[in-house]
């Protein structure tokens, strides 16, 4: 008996929880984006695992592929926003960036 679906899903769930913890606790906006990346990677592991163990074919790989591309696009826009916020406010600590039209 090789590695089962449950073990892969457990890894993915722990990774998701770790990413969630990063998003919830880190004060730095860039670190929060890293947590989002961890969460997206956990979801990709789930897609691939279900394709291998339950629903054979290529749909899981395609979904994971599109998710990776969307993660790249999301990070590009989000980091541009972070840099823009840093230029206009001078910090990216999310506690300090609490005023609109600052």
């Amino acid at each position, binding site marked *: 008996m*090789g*590695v089962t*679906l*449950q*073990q*892969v899903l*457990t*890894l993915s*769930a*722990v*990774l998701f*929880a*770790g990413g*969630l*913890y*990063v998003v*919830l*606790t*880190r*004060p*730095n906006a*860039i670190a929060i*984006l*890293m*947590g989002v*990346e*961890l969460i997206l990677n956990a979801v*990709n*592991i789930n897609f*691939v*695992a279900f*394709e*291998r*163990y*339950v629903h*054979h074919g*290529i749909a899981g*790989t*395609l979904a*994971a*592929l*599109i998710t*990776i*591309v969307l*993660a*790249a*696009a*999301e*990070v*590009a*826009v989000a*980091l*541009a926003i*972070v840099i823009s916020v*840093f*230029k*206009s406010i001078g910090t*990216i*600590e999310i*506690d300090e960036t609490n005023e609109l039209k600052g």
Partner: protein
Amino acid sequence: MTIPHILFYGLALGILACTAVVAFSRSIVRSAFALLGATLGIAGIFGFLGADYLAVVQVMIYVGGIMVLFLFAVMFTSQIAEVKATNRAMRRLPAALLCLAWLGMALFVIWTYPFVQRVQADRPATPPLGEALLGHYLLPLEVTGVLVVVTLVGAVAIGRYGKKGGA
């Protein structure tokens, strides 16, 4: 304990150690490199699960693209070392409790749901993927491509106009 088990547990331990560094390191650069290690481990998991093309794409996009973006953003914003460990809205303990509660729920579902498992036979995955992307899944591919173009142009536009640009 067979060789697949050793491989899988080794990769999983590496990924989770890197995740812990991302979560607990004070230095944002160290977090970025730990994220790099985690994504490399996840590429290994993809290869382990028979999705070799996805493993290569993961390495290319994360190492070649996203990690460079992260390091550039860290250097632009010049806040390498964090003084505070957590933000004001959420301290470590409530966040950890929330994550553990979610994890418990997920693990309960994973280990009680009766999955019907049949391991897919290993086969070359790339040729059917290319045929599907240019055939049945052409519309998602094109929509994703348009989205990437729009977001990259938008990223350039947003990053360009700060306070100095007059926005």
